[in-house]
């Protein structure tokens, strides 16, 4: 583990030396930006949309296994509807690749789908001058949905998942989405609550040649805190989930907590190194009970 930490740090700092120059990394970033693409850990309509893509070295506390994990998701260009209204409705296709070498839960999945975002109302702005249009609500709902068609290369099957969730946003002090700043006006924190439902269809999940079909509802809390502005970011992600419609023997209550910390050297937010701790029933690992520590090199555009 220590060797891996050292290697990750060396790789990161060797890369970071060229951040300010016309490096290949910057050229790749520019090409992706020019083509209106985004890269994240996942575009599953969840908190992962704020998390970077990356390669991680993981230690499973529930078994002697250490393994490598890859999470890469690309958001393609957006199709925007309701352009002449005071609402936002956007559809976008996404492609994702998730791979894990964990011998107790091997994964190699290619995922395609279409996601949407819907903001039905505007958001009122505090302290705007007189005479400037200020339509909308003080705290406004917004919706996200995602569809996923996954090719599971390990089990040689297709999996489906549909997610729909509601969140809230505001520009007013202390409310969801509000940007908390310190006395020096540095960005320090923000949070979002989520309420959602999803539908899953997963072959070979519990038993070979048997398909598990089930729905869940969940309540989620996501927060990001900048311990050091522009450098050191702490993410907290807590999900309480209940499986509400299932013919299988799945456990009914499947909560999970995930916290991570990322260091972004060189006053940039594209490339960083991170540590993540995850404990609970992981929907990405067939709702098995996991307790995993990860070291990550992350990439976010």
């Amino acid at each position, binding site marked *: 583990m220590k060797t891996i930490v050292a290697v990750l740090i060396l790789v990161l700092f060797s890369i970071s030396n060229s951040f300010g120059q016309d490096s290949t990394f910057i050229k790749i970033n520019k090409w992706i930006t020019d083509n*209106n693409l985004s890269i994240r850990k996942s575009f599953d309509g969840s908190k992962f949309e704020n998390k970077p893509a990356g390669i991680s070295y993981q230690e499973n506390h529930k078994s002697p296994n250490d393994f490598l994990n890859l999470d890469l998701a690309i958001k393609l260009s957006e199709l*925007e509807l309701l352009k002449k209204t005071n609402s936002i409705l956007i559809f976008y296709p996404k492609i994702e690749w998730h791979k894990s070498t964990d011998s107790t839960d091997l994964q190699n999945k290619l995922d395609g789908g279409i996601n949407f975002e819907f903001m039905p109302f505007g*958001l009122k702005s505090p302290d705007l001058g007189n005479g400037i*249009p*200020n339509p*909308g609500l003080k705290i*406004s709902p917004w919706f996200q949905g995602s569809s996923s068609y996954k090719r599971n290369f390990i089990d040689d099957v297709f999996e489906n998942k549909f997610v729909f969730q509601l969140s809230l*946003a505001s*520009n007013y002090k202390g409310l969801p989405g509000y940007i908390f700043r310190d006395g020096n006006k540095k960005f320090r924190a923000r949070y979002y609550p989520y309420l959602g439902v999803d539908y899953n269809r997963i072959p070979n999940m519990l038993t070979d040649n048997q398909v598990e079909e089930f729905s869940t509802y969940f309540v989620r809390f996501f927060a990001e805190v900048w311990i050091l502005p522009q450098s050191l970011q702490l993410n907290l992600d807590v999900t309480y989930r209940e499986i509400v419609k299932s013919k299988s023997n799945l456990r009914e209550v499947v909560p999970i907590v995930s916290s991570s910390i990322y260091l972004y050297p060189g006053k940039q937010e594209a490339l960083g190194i991170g540590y993540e701790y995850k404990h609970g029933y992981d929907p990405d690992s067939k709702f098995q009970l996991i307790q995993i520590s990860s070291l990550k090199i992350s990439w976010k555009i």
Partner: protein
Amino acid sequence: MKEAIRANVIAYIASFANLKIEDVMDEHILKSYPLGLDDTKLGFLTIALRAYLRSINPDQIVLASELRKKDFDVKKTYELIIKKAGI
């Protein structure tokens, strides 16, 4: 008129970012430090700027995809509104 639009667009950005108007600079990237507007906030900012633009030129619209570009900064934002306002 251009100066009024510039000032008003900056007022919207400052309010969404919880900053004072004088702390918002032309070169600040909407998505990055110190503004830190995420895609959700940029969606709502689009709705606000769309309403503002409609009050000047009802035939023009602003798209969320325009504000969400990675390198889109404050200056590009008010220049976009000025251009669409037809001034």
